């Protein structure tokens, strides 16, 4: 109860649903911890691009003398050396979700599993769809993690005879997804399923499908477990058979473990991978956070 600690948290800005959720969980856990541990102080910075994130981290070190840094790298490569620099100053580093380009910098690594995310979804498609069925895929904002997901997905449906009619970027954005799906629908007369890869996009996709009156024809798998979507899965919506988790709450885990490491002697270093699970109507309840914005 003697020493005071400052923990810096750097995460991407809430530019789409998932990050919104992540921001929410980050702030929630910070409030919780500040309440329980008066000697803890938090600096939260959200940034719209890698450069800004580096600025934020520099500022935390230079002006807020942080004792620990929890960072969700906007991109792995550009943040590697800056975070390394932080580490070299003897500051505890927790990396969340996106690993740095050079292994072994961070003390603690908490991450969702992008490859797993894509694979799990792919496996579900492979096992549910028949040979020769057609699907379309909506991709996110062009980034490494989007590539990882899509590659894993493609690998998983490899050889299942499912043919991917088209892949376009919906940028994890409802409106873009809506437009793209509308065009898919006018382009292809036979679509059996859609991998929307993100629940924000799923919302747009579902809207486009119902507008075209083809709801019976195809089902949609989104991702990351947005509350509205989970709700519909709980209610057994035939269009939304399952969902794949990519828990935005991982940031909370990371922050809490870091805090724990500082205030208590508990050894917390290591790697914690939070695998992606399939949400089904049966298990949906335990993924449902009604008051999260996501």
């Amino acid at each position: 109860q003697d020493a005071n600690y400052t923990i810096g948290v750097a995460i991407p800005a809430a530019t789409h649903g998932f990050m919104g959720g992540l921001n929410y969980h980050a702030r929630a856990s910070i409030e919780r911890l500040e309440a329980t541990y008066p000697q803890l102080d938090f600096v939260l910075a959200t940034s719209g691009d890698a450069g800004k994130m580096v600025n934020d981290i520099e500022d935390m070190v230079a002006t807020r003398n942080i004792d620990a840094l929890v960072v969700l790298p906007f991109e792995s490569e550009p943040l590697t050396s800056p975070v390394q620099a932080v580490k070299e100053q003897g500051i505890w580093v927790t990396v969340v979700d996106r690993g740095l380009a050079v292994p072994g910098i961070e003390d603690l690594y908490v991450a969702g599993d992008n490859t797993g995310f894509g694979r799990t979804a792919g496996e579900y498609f492979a096992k549910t769809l028949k040979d020769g069925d057609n699907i379309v895929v909506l991709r996110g904002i062009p980034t490494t993690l989007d590539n990882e997901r899509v590659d894993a997905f493609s690998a998983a449906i490899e050889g299942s005879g499912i043919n991917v009619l088209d892949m376009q970027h919906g940028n994890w954005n409802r409106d873009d997804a809506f437009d793209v799906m509308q065009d898919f629908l006018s382009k292809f007369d036979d679509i059996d399923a859609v991998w929307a890869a993100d629940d924000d996009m799923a919302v747009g996709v579902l809207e486009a499908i119902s507008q075209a009156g083809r709801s019976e024809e195809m089902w949609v798998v989104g991702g990351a477990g947005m509350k509205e979507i989970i709700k519909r899965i709980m209610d057994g919506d035939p269009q939304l058979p399952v969902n794949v988790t990519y828990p935005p709450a991982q940031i909370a885990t990371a922050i809490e473990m870091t805090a724990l490491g500082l205030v208590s002697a508990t050894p917390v270093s290591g790697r914690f991978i939070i695998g992606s699970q399939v949400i089904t109507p049966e298990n949906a309840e335990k993924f449902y956070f009604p008051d999260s914005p996501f």
Partner: protein
Amino acid sequence: MSKLAKSSPRKFNLHVLGPLLALVALILLGASLNSNFLGYGNVTNVLARSAFIGIIAVGMTFVITAGGIDLSVGSMAAFVAGVMILAMNALIPILGVGVPLIVAGMGVALLAGFLAGFMNGFLIAKIRIEAFIVTLGSMGIYRSLITWLSDGGTLSLNFEARSFYRPVYYDGIWGVSWPIIVFAAVAILGELAMRHTPFGRHCAALGANEQVAKYSAIKVDRLRMGTYVLLGVLVGLATIMYVPRLGSASGSTGVLWELEAIAAVIIGGTVLKGGFGRVWGTVIGVLILSLIDNILNLASIVSPYLNGAIQGVIVILAVVLQREGKSAK
């Protein structure tokens, strides 16, 4: 403008037809690439999508013609949508789900748009700050306000309210959906206002030479302010069409709409420095822009990564076509 002034009749034609040609070319291209392109479904989709940007771009035409610019429309739209959704959700207990609720929501949207436009207009016309700076500022302000209101996530309209409101985007009369009808109405009124009313004349005069406008007994400040207020209200109107589509608003709503709207205006032949505006051109500009996206999706010719590049090239080409006449000079 001086260039425009010089372009002699013959050249002027090409200058006028430029955007039209580009549009036709795109339509032919689309039709050749995909048989469904000219199908009822796709045409409706494209037109309905164009409505938001389109309605806004018509307002932008007046702002630019009067020598101004507004970078804030995109985030303004997101903000207005957010406010509208919050208001409607809050009003459900009182009004219940029904026409009154929708009307109330629309009222809120228009009012919010009006106020937002008024703010911009006031700072620009009365306090005399560069329009670019004012609207760059308000762009940031509205964007972060909506993110804040939505707590970084998404504001969604109550489910019943939404299902009740939905038809405003998806239905229409005689198979023409409402957004298209509203867009058409706004475009026609805009064209009339620009070409046949003192307001349009005065906007052009103001953009061409503020001094002359002043000496011609035009209330310059009020006029300039008027253009921004008009734009604000039209943003509100666009929002009214937008919200029923997905029933939600978030920090990522309407990102880059401002650039699209301005691009549409310029492609349409309005002069960026002001003094000459053409509403019908703007409409064509909007259609060109949304057709590009549509075609790129319909015919996945190239790596989707390159879509942006193709867009850029086409936009430039569309304007080259139009400028041909002038470049000769």
